[in-house]
């Protein structure tokens, strides 16, 4: 184990850095990296190389080639570049390759070189050309920033939702000399997409609104220009490299200096990136020149004497900053440089007595069947550090790249666990699972060199990892991982199968039947799979027939509708929408159909779909009354037509002639519907309307739209008794109603004389009790009493009680020997006044019972 730390290099007193090989690359590069535009995606993502860029080639006769490789150098795609000159390449967070052209167009490609879409960074760029471009990542997504020939910056913070923002002008304009080689990128972006720009010895910060000059605190004097800038992966820190070979390191806010260092190399570095680990106090910058690599750190104890590490580069190399280190790849190798994590340091540091180190040793001795195992173990236990030891071993295993070393650490942890009573198993189990997954994707053939930290710490979830595998079309591995981790089907296997199916439908050489069958066989009724999504993809590839076949597998009829509409299968869409029971969908389809079909066909279609028909009727009632009429006409629905015209006579027509005409049409319709009652009633209404109109003309006042009853009442109240009676005769108002009506009206007028005359005109068809009631309602007891005497014997008691003559009521009731009447009177007896009456009734009752 002595040699294990051979690749560890101390930086200062407190930290070690190590560099180990991830892959040996056999990607067979024909050109030097330095002659290519290079873009490598973070999180162990793919590498894109655009060879033969235009700036090298004087004559653009040879078309350049765009190659995409996995991180292990496996070719993923290679295509001839047929578009314009490219300024910069970069990967989005979704692993899409963004190629920024000189004319401001951005072409987006998939991992496999499939063209996705393109967009432009604005018209202004067309003339000025793009000098430089940068792809950056913020919380909103992946953005693009460009620097134009007019020395203006334009950026979009999220290419998924393109909103271009032009940054303010830099004072003094023309300050970025165009002759400076573009490689010396002297601008950087921070977390909120502000741009830091170096112009000669000055620094400017550009935000949305303004451009302000800034000065890093504690910057050494004598700087005449900045050669390189680097912002850390998390956008927290900034490093500046000046023409004096001086490096300033501080916070990105430019509020605090962390340290400075003079490397005495004045040559501009090729690349400078931060190399730090989350939650570590160590901060270091890696600077690369043609053949030299330097790690410059700020060791907290000795700020004045920062430390550095030197490496020699054998080949042309390229740095990729990662969350917890730096990847370095060249023609032949792909390496990872990072700070040794604490747990590993504890265990492997030479002569370490940390509990983890002892446990690892103990386990080794145990395997050798040596008693030393016991000694080591006791030593840990005596210090009470066994739990800590196990934790250390588990954690350290996560940071190891080699499965052998992972295994021996886990074995040690497992060994230590045996001697602990209650050690929660989760961390061990999860580590084993995670490492299996990580080792699988790190495999040379897969080529995703993720570190444990990147995978585990919020940065990349298992879902994202699965997405990445799906992007690489590694469906079987993704499914195996889902099954291994026992992910719920909807999140795991189903999703991947759905992606597979979407890929499958793009295989043009397979017949529709075969594709549909293959997909259904694999997917079956897997929950969470949307056949309509797959069908939509098939339709997108121009395979309508396949799409229809796939839709048949979709169990949710509602989901089929939008695509069916898109494919112009509207009638099918209508029945599916109805099946789904979702009326919004039915409406959507109906409006489609209405525009698509001629009126006759449309109505015919509706006829066969009663539910759609009733919905459409509702729609017409509010939007298209005329259409509603046509619908009824077509169905010979005269009853509804009649109602339609009646409604029109109230709502649509204002003039009396128009209203009468509408009513006439309605009456005709009712006759056709054999609804004579309605027809007659309508005709009566026409008569009444005309008459009311005449009354208004002759008598003034308001008659229109009163009911017949109210019309007569109004006439009586106005003193037009003759007219009223004429009307009653004309419209054959029944006697009973007329009596009620007159009685009420006359009482309202308090015309007691006329009322009495009326009561005597003939025998009342409604009896005389109503007279009593209504007089009492008008509080005229005197009049009421008059009528009470005329009330027939059956209602006499009621009448007497109404006028308040309890005693007489009692007499009548006793006379009638009616039990119900007796109780009624009794209930009206109140207090002392009616005491005698009450007694009388009680006596009568008693007598009745005796008999």
């Amino acid at each position, binding site marked *: 184990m002595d040699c294990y730390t051979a690749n560890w290099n101390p930086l200062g007193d407190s930290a070690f850095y190590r560099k180990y090989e991830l892959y040996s690359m056999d990607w067979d590069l024909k050109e030097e990296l330095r002659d290519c535009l290079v873009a490598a995606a973070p999180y162990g993502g793919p590498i894109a190389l655009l060879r033969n860029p235009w700036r090298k080639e004087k004559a653009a006769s040879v078309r350049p080639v765009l190659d995409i490789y996995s991180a292990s150098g496996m070719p993923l795609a290679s295509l001839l570049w047929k578009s314009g000159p490219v300024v910069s390449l970069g990967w989005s967070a979704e692993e899409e390759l963004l190629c920024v052209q000189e004319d401001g167009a951005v072409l987006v490609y998939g991992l496999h070189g499939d063209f996705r879409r393109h967009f432009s960074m604005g018209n202004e760029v067309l003339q000025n050309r793009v000098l430089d471009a940068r792809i950056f990542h913020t919380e909103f997504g992946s953005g693009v920033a460009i620097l134009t020939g007019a020395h203006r910056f334009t950026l979009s913070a999220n290419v998924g939702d393109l909103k271009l923002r032009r940054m303010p002008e830099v004072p003094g304009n023309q300050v970025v000399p165009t002759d400076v080689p573009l490689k010396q990128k002297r601008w950087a972006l921070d977390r909120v997409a502000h741009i830091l720009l170096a112009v000669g010895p000055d620094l400017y910060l550009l935000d949305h609104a303004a451009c302000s000059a800034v000065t890093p605190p504690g910057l050494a004097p004598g700087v005449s220009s900045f050669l390189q800038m680097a912002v850390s992966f998390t956008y927290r820190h900034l490093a500046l490299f000046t023409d004096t070979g001086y490096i300033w390191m501080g916070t990105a806010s430019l509020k605090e200096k962390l340290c400075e260092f003079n490397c005495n190399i004045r040559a501009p570095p090729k690349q400078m990136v931060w190399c730090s680990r989350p939650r570590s106090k160590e901060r270091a910058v890696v600077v690369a020149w043609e053949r030299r690599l330097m790690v410059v750190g700020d060791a907290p104890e000795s700020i004045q004497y920062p430390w550095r590490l030197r490496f020699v580069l054998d080949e042309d190399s390229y740095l990729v900053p990662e969350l917890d280190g730096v990847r370095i790849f060249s023609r032949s190798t792909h390496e990872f440089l990072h700070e040794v994590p604490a747990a590993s340091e504890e265990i492997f540091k030479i002569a370490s007595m940390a509990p983890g180190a002892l446990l690892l040793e103990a386990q080794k001795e145990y395997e050798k069947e040596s008693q030393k195992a016991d000694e080591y173990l006791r030593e840990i236990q005596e210090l009470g550090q066994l739990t800590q030891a196990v934790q250390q071993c588990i954690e350290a295993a996560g940071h190891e790249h080699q499965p052998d070393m992972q295994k021996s650490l886990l074995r040690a942890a497992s060994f230590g666990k045996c001697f602990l009573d209650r050690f929660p198993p989760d961390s061990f189990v999860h580590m084993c699972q995670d490492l299996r997954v990580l080792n699988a994707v790190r495999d040379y053939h897969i080529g995703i060199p993720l570190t444990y930290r990147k995978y585990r710490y919020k940065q990349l979830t298992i879902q994202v990892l699965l997405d990445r595998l799906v992007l690489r079309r590694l469906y079987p591995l993704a499914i195996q991982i889902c099954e291994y981790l026992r992910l719920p089907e909807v999140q795991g296997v189903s999703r991947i199968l759905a992606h597979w199916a979407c890929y499958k439908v793009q295989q043009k050489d397979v017949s529709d039947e075969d594709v549909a069958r293959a997909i259904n066989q694999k997917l079956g009724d897997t929950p969470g799979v949307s056949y309509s999504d797959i069908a939509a993809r098939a339709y997108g590839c121009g395979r309508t027939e396949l799409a229809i076949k796939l839709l048949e597998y979709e169990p949710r009829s509602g989901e089929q509708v939008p695509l069916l509409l898109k494919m112009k299968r509207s009638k099918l869409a209508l029945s599916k929408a109805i099946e789904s*029971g979702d*009326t919004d969908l039915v409406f959507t389809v109906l409006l489609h159909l209405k525009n698509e079909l001629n009126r006759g066909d449309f109505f015919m279609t509706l006829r066969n*779909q009663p539910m759609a028909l009733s919905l459409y009727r*509702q729609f017409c009632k509010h939007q298209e009354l005329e259409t509603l009429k046509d619908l009824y006409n077509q169905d010979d629905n005269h009853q509804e037509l009649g109602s339609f015209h009646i409604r029109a006579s109230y709502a649509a027509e204002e003039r009396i002639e128009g209203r009468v005409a509408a009513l006439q049409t309605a009456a005709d319709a009712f006759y056709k519907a054999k609804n004579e*009652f309605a027809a007659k009633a309508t005709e009566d209404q026409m008569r009444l309307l005309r008459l009311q109109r005449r009354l208004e003309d002759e008598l003034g006042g308001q008659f229109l739209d009163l009911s017949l009853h109210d019309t007569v009442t109004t006439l009586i109240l106005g003193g037009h008794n003759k007219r009223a009676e004429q009307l009653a005769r004309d419209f054959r108002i029944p006697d009973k109603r007329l009596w009620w009506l007159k009685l009420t009206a006359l009482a309202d007028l308090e015309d007691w004389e006329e009322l009495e005359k009326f009561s005597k005109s003939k025998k009342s068809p409604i009896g005389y009790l109503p007279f009593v009631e209504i007089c009492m309602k008008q509080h005229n007891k005197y009049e009421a009493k008059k009528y009470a005497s005329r009330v027939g014997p059956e209602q006499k008691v009621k009448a007497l009680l109404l006028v308040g003559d309890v005693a007489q009521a009692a007499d009548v009731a006793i006379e009638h020997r009616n039990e119900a009447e007796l109780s009624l009177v009794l209930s009206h007896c109140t207090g002392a006044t009616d005491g005698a009456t009450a007694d009388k009734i009680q006596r009568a009752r008693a007598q009745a019972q005796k008999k």
Partner: protein
Amino acid sequence: MAFPHRPDAPELPDFSMLKRLARDQLIYLLEQLPGKKDLFIEADLMSPLDRIANVSILKQHEVDKLYKVENKPALSSNEQLCFLVRPRIKNMRYIANVSCDEWAFSLLPLDVDLLSMELPEFFRDYFLEGDQRWINTVAQALHLLSTLYGPFPNCYGIGRCAKMAYELWRNLEEEEDGETKGRRPEIGHIFLLDRDVDFVTALCSQVVYEGLVDDTFRIKCGSVDFGPEVTSSDKSLKVLLNAEDKVFNEIRNEHFSNVFGFLSQKARNLQAQYDRRRGMDIKQMKNFVSQELKGLKQEHRLLSLHIGACESIMKKKTKQDFQELIKTEHALLEGFNIRESTSYIEEHIDRQVSPIESLRLMCLLSITENGLIPKDYRSLKTQYLQSYGPEHLLTFSNLRRAGLLTEQAPGDTLTAVESKVSKLVTDKAAGKITDAFSSLAKRSNFRAISKKLNLIPRVDGEYDLKVPRDMAYVFSGAYVPLSCRIIEQVLERRSWQGLDEVVRLLNCSDFAFTDMTKEDKASSESLRLILVVFLGGCTFSEISALRFLGREKGHRFIFLTTAVTNSARLMEAMSEVKA
């Protein structure tokens, strides 16, 4: 007085979760529009919204001003307008160029045992216009309930709409398989019922307190506006009526004749509690003021409100007219003195007592008598048109279509048509049968059903309304609500077995269903919880009756309705009023 629940009665699930859910979603939607905005709310969503999120919550999420949506272009100075409307064509005409988000608010818990979808138009849309667009909403609401409170092991239902809603709901559950799987059911039974299975109950005058308050003052979204005549001041007062109002909770299910006595007893008790303070020393007094006084005052306030409401109701209802009215209703339900009742209705119309009331009586007569005889059908309608205006010709057309007011058809020919119709109905693709057929299909067989189900209790002596013996107490002992009786019978049998004849008489042979899943996980407690879903609205009388049944059997009923309804609301929904 107010009957306590049996000690083994199950606990109700917590439905306030629904309110929180709706509120959170609304807030989420509001936050999708950052910055100040004006909120336009449809009139009939105002009360529900108020129950879910009050103004201060809205203001917190940068709602500047609140407007009512009117059918005219919206005027506002704000740049962002947010509209909260039901999806109706007539609204959307005025709201153009908008992006839409759905506020999936469907269930408003009005009380601990009452959930309302606040969709009063469901009744007209479905039962008159044949518009099925809300059925999906019902299915989604049921789906929401099953995701929150576990699956329902036992499902029963009757009615075409009930069946459709049930099937849609099942489809939703299947689509999102796994979500409810393995959950313990909290509610053991669900019963879906179409309003048109029992129109009679909904058409009767209500005499239990809560129903009477609804009939008299109109309870809106769980609260009522008591006018000056009740509050005995010059102000109106908006009062929430639910189980939290302790006074109300004790009288809500009582027959009105008991309420006044109860309230005066309560007043005396309250006075006695106030009086206790006379003999108190300072410490006791301090205690009294800090702990009891507030509660007493609160109770005092509520008590005086309900006494005021009672007085107001008495003034309106205890007159001769009301007694006569109730007498006529009972005669109609029992089926005697039909001629007399018909004349009563005629007089009612002639005197222009109230258009809605007259209509209600006509419908009640029609349904209980299986349609009016042709002569009455014509003459009553003629009288009605003369009294209340000719535009009601349309109202009659509506009532006929809904099966509420029909003409008796000669007996024999009908059965043939009927069987044809039911064949049509079974055909799923046929969807909605034509209007002409449907009005025939909705023939009422009330009399026969009433006999089969024993809806008119035999009365030996006085029916003691203080100690009810069956659900008939909600109608003064004269009639057991049909809807509630059906529910009782089915729950007793755990199926429709033995009720074939009733189902046939209800014309629901194809729409009565049961679905039991073998659910061992259902606890005995959950099996005593029953969710009753009324499609088209339910009345407070029905709620009271089932609450009574629950107490008798040691069950608890939970009610889900498209809206709380009563006879007036049903009639208004059918009425055509001049624009």
